[in-house]
């Protein structure tokens, strides 16, 4: 279990992290979401020791994390960084050695990782000659090659094509299945919803929601209805107790307050024309996210 406990960090007058605590159990993939500037990168940097917290601590397997323990972590920073002129394999082997592998192991594992990620034919090229997508694969390989005990990835999916997203998702699932706690930040909430069981939401330096996505959904007591019609959508707010949560191309997700029944919505929809979709829905992760960050 990776524990972040009461982390606080200020930059001048700005409070970047305010008493942030959450845990990532071994074998679980946790999505770390929040608006830009919410404190995700700051929190991840503190976990990796790249930044110091003003107060609070990070624990791994119950013990305070020090430099020696951190060497066994894997990290992918938001601002990608590699030596542009170094050859891919030399670079990965070097980073592997910094993470404590001996020379032979570092090379062998780097080669294996780079094969899994599909850049094996470029191992002897200078990193700067690779496409951005391939450089990102190399960056990921740098986080994985030393077989880390903990994986912390800052926006790992940004900039990847759909095939790259699937490859990365597969690799992260394998890591989690092997018992590694995986935490990654992302703005792609649908992706987080698809990949993660648990999620941590941060806003303005504070944790605003955390837990299993299913629990968050269940605890969201709102009654939501999704309705789509063929023609011109009516003005849903004509109905008392109805608010629009999300506008769709030909319909909307509506929140019904107590006393309003779905049938009222359906009647209004039928009056407008052919009903293409009607159903009671659970709030999606983006719904929950919007709600907690605007609260």
């Amino acid at each position, binding site marked *: 279990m990776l524990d972040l406990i009461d982390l606080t960090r200020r930059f001048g007058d700005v409070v970047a992290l305010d008493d942030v605590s959450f845990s990532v159990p071994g074998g679980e993939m946790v999505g770390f979401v929040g608006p830009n500037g919410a404190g995700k990168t700051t929190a991840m940097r503190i976990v*990796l020791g790249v930044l110091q917290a003003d107060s609070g601590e990070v624990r791994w397997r119950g013990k305070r994390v020090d430099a020696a323990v951190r060497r066994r972590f894997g990290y992918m920073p938001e601002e990608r960084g590699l030596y542009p002129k170094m050859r891919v394999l030399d670079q990965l082997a070097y980073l592997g050695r*910094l993470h404590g592998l001996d020379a032979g192991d570092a090379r062998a594992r780097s080669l294996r990782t780079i094969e899994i990620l599909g850049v094996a034919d470029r191992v002897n090229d200078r990193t700067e000659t690779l496409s951005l997508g391939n450089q990102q694969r190399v960056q990921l390989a740098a986080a994985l090659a030393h077989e880390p005990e903990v994986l912390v990835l800052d926006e790992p999916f940004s900039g990847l094509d759909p095939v790259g997203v699937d490859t990365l998702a597969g690799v992260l699932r394998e890591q989690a299945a092997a018992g590694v706690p995986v935490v990654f930040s992302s703005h792609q909430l649908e992706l987080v919803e698809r990949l993660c069981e648990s999620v941590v939401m941060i806003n303005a330096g504070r944790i605003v929601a955390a837990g299993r996505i299913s629990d968050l959904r269940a605890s969201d007591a709102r009654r939501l209805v999704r309705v789509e019609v063929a023609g011109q959508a009516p003005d849903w707010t004509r109905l008392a107790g109805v608010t629009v949560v999300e506008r769709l191309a030909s319909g909307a997700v509506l929140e019904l307050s107590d006393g309003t029944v779905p049938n009222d919505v359906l009647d209004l929809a039928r009056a407008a024309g052919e009903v293409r979709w009607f159903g009671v829905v659970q709030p999606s992760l983006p719904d929950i996210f919007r709600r907690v960050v605007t609260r």
Partner: protein
Amino acid sequence: MNGAKRDSDRGIYRVVARREFVERFKDRGFRISTGITLTILVGFLVLSSLAGGRARYDLVVVGEDAVEVGTQLERGSATLAFDVTVQELDDEASAERALRDGDADAVLIGGDRIVVKSDGPADLLGAVQSVSERLRAHQVLEEAGVSPDQADEALDVAPLPVRALEPIDERRQQLAAVAFVGVLALYGQLFAYGYWVAAGVVEEKSSRVVEVLLSAIRPSQLLRGKILGIGLLGLCQLLLIGMIGFGTALGVGRLDFPGGALGAIGVVLLWFLFGYAFYASLFAVAGSIVSRQEDLQATMTPLSLVIIASFFLGIQAVGNPDSTLATVSSLMPWSAPLSMPSRIMLGQASIWFAFLSAVISVAATAALIPVATRVYANAVLRPGKVKLRDALARR
């Protein structure tokens, strides 16, 4: 889960140093510049050995008396400081042509005049004059009834001995030349390798690989490894250049005091270490407070000025190794690397004084490194230009 062997993280700076050394050694620019330096050095030594030695002059003689002077000059050439080739021509006109064409350095016409193009070589003219004077005096004496033997005796007077109050010390002169080259080499090497440290820091910062590195190791380990690796390369390069220069100079016979020269190379290497260690962490700081190579020049300026000033102090220490200025500058840790070696080579510094200078350098470096490391650690992860004052503050 992790079967791989994990090194203790204490020696991790050696892994960093190895990369710095290997990656730079593999760099084509480094190999080319080393090659050029060696070519210039060897070429200079070989050429100077060919050009060096005795001067050679061509003397053209016209007429019987002149031929006699030429013959005597050739006969006595062993006592002259130059070689002379005498050529006999039939008439003055062709002799003058030889002068104009540069085939002759001077022309002697009969027993009565010398012709030069514009300004003949003084040592040749002096020799011709004295031989001619002697011949003419001999003639006058014989005409006055003195026997040839007596005339010879009268004219065979030994030149006056000369006693120099401050005789030229050949050994010292050669050592001063070696010391000058040493100062030049140290200056270039300190600048080049200091710059490499700064540029290396900026490279990691601008490519942002530094965040990846610092998620695995500490800033102090990264900095120590970088300084060590680059410095080792500088030392190896200096050693290579020194050894090849020494070998070439010995081979072409330009070195009369090989022991002294070898000692000089050793002293230069040692003070490269002291100077580099002192300056490297400062160059790292200069690199850590900017994010782009273009901005590096500006932050390096104060450092560059100190090194340039120290270079001039070093040059004057070669000329006046016993001056107060040289004594003081050979003790200051920033100028000692450029002043101390020449004073040692020229025999102007006792062993304890050299030791004192070394101790001051090491102590200053030891005091500097923690401060430099702190600034580096505070600045290297901040984007853009960082104010030195902010980086010095304890977070």
